[in-house]
């Protein structure tokens, strides 16, 4: 790699029938940073994540991960290359125990024997010790979000996409999650790309923010710049707020 971009999104367009969910979006993520992606409901944030992680092939554009074109690569290969993610609507493995669900992630890089060690470490890291033998279907939202995070961490990614990891959490759970995420970034050196509605979390966590509105990228910048950008305020509050 000549540059230090871990992820390059180039002119991505994704349509659902006539609806252009993501329209010609380009952005770069630098190795080691925490970047945010915000935007009103239906802006196309989740869709962009689905394109990046290989679930939806885009109509146009390229996704470059670690210098390699992964636009039409299947998700599990992208994961092997070092990218994993969590979901907005939690998707832990309902019929499996917390421990087993995380172990599935650990197999991404390790043989059966080694996985137990990884699982133990990740479980401790995400504070899931008391829940390790519980079934995922029986857990509450905050715990499920941590299971998803743990499962993704167990794959030992270099880039982690988090889709609204803070949604539905109370302030203390949110504080916990932010601490964990900062540690993930600082100690494991994992680049974080987060979609977030909770402004407190975006502002407190991200070094750079992209703003998406109706499928288009309308602003990029540091949190302070973004919060004062008229186009962003317009997108969030409607045109009347500007006049």
């Amino acid at each position, binding site marked *: 790699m000549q540059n230090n971009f871990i992820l390059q999104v180039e002119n991505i367009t994704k349509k659902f029938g006539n609806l252009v969910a993501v329209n010609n979006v380009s952005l770069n993520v630098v190795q080691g940073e925490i970047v945010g992606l915000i935007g009103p409901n239906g802006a196309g944030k989740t869709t962009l994540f689905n394109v990046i992680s290989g679930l939806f092939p885009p109509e146009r554009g390229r996704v470059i991960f670690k210098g390699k074109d992964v636009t039409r690569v299947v998700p599990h290969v992208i994961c092997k290359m070092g990218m994993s993610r969590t979901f907005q609507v939690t998707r832990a*493995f309902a019929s499996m125990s917390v421990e087993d669900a995380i172990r599935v992630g650990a*197999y991404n890089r390790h043989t059966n024997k080694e996985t137990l060690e990884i699982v133990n470490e990740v479980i401790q890291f995400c504070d899931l010790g008391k829940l390790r033998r519980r079934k995922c279907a029986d857990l509450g939202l905050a715990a499920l979000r941590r299971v998803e995070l743990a499962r993704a961490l167990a794959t030992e990614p270099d880039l982690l996409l988090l889709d609204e990891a803070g949604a539905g959490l109370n302030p203390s759970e949110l504080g916990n999650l932010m601490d964990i995420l900062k540690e993930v970034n600082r100690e494991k050196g994992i680049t974080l790309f987060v979609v977030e509605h909770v402004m407190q979390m975006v502002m407190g966590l991200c070094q750079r923010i992209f703003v998406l509105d109706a499928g288009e990228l309308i602003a990029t910048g540091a949190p302070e710049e973004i919060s004062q950008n008229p186009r962003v305020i317009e997108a969030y509050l409607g045109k009347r707020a500007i006049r």
Partner: protein
Amino acid sequence: MDAVIQLLVNGALMGCIYALITLGLSLIFGVMNIVNFAHGDLVMISMYMAFWMGSYMGLDASLTPLITFPMLFLLGIGIYYALIDRTLRQKYVTQIAVTVGLMTFLRAVAQLAWKAQPRSLPYSLISGNFQIGSATIMTSRLISALVSVLVIVLVALFLSRTWPGRAIRAVSDDLDASSLVGVNQKATYALAFGLGSALTAIAGGMLMTFQQVDPTMGLRFGLLSWCVLALTGLGSISGLLISGIIVGCAEALAMGFWDPRARLLVVYLIFILVLWLRPRGVFGRK
């Protein structure tokens, strides 16, 4: 009364084999949501293979799974890549058409290769019978039932304790989420289809120790396994055994007290009744 007990004993022993056949079907259905109409015909093919190895190679039917298990496993993987993989994203009718087509094909092959008359092997290593109370127990049926239960337990352990087993469970819980944490969807589906098919080899071999085979037999095993699966629901191993035994006993009672030709009718009635009253099964999850 003695007659009832005798029928129940036979039915329960058969039921264990039905449970084993259904385990294969359940694995395939649970993982990739495919209705494999050819499953019963794989049992029939396995029985013919056991017959063939018994009559031309002198191998005892109960030992044929040692050879037919890997063969059916490979056949299953071949079927997956050649047929099933392409239909996964198609409409439901297409999937049904493909597996019904496979069923017809297997049946036609069996009819060509072995003609329509029933075949059976003259003897087996496990033969004879013994008495418990008033009931006579055929050793071959008893051993077949025990082998079935053992294999079911082994598969359950495989699913819960091993890497491929966990991958199979993860993929059946959530395909997208599992592929995003590194699980290879195609390989896992192929493995599930191969294993599901291979289990019919064990059932087929054991059945040949005391039964004859004919080319239309697939229909019976197909219907039986659908009935047991409907009764069980998905995800319960103990429920699978109980359902198998219930269906086996119902079938035996119908044959004993009504008419041997009524056996499938009773199975079909249970099937319809369960779908009507408990569409998600009695023992399963969700």
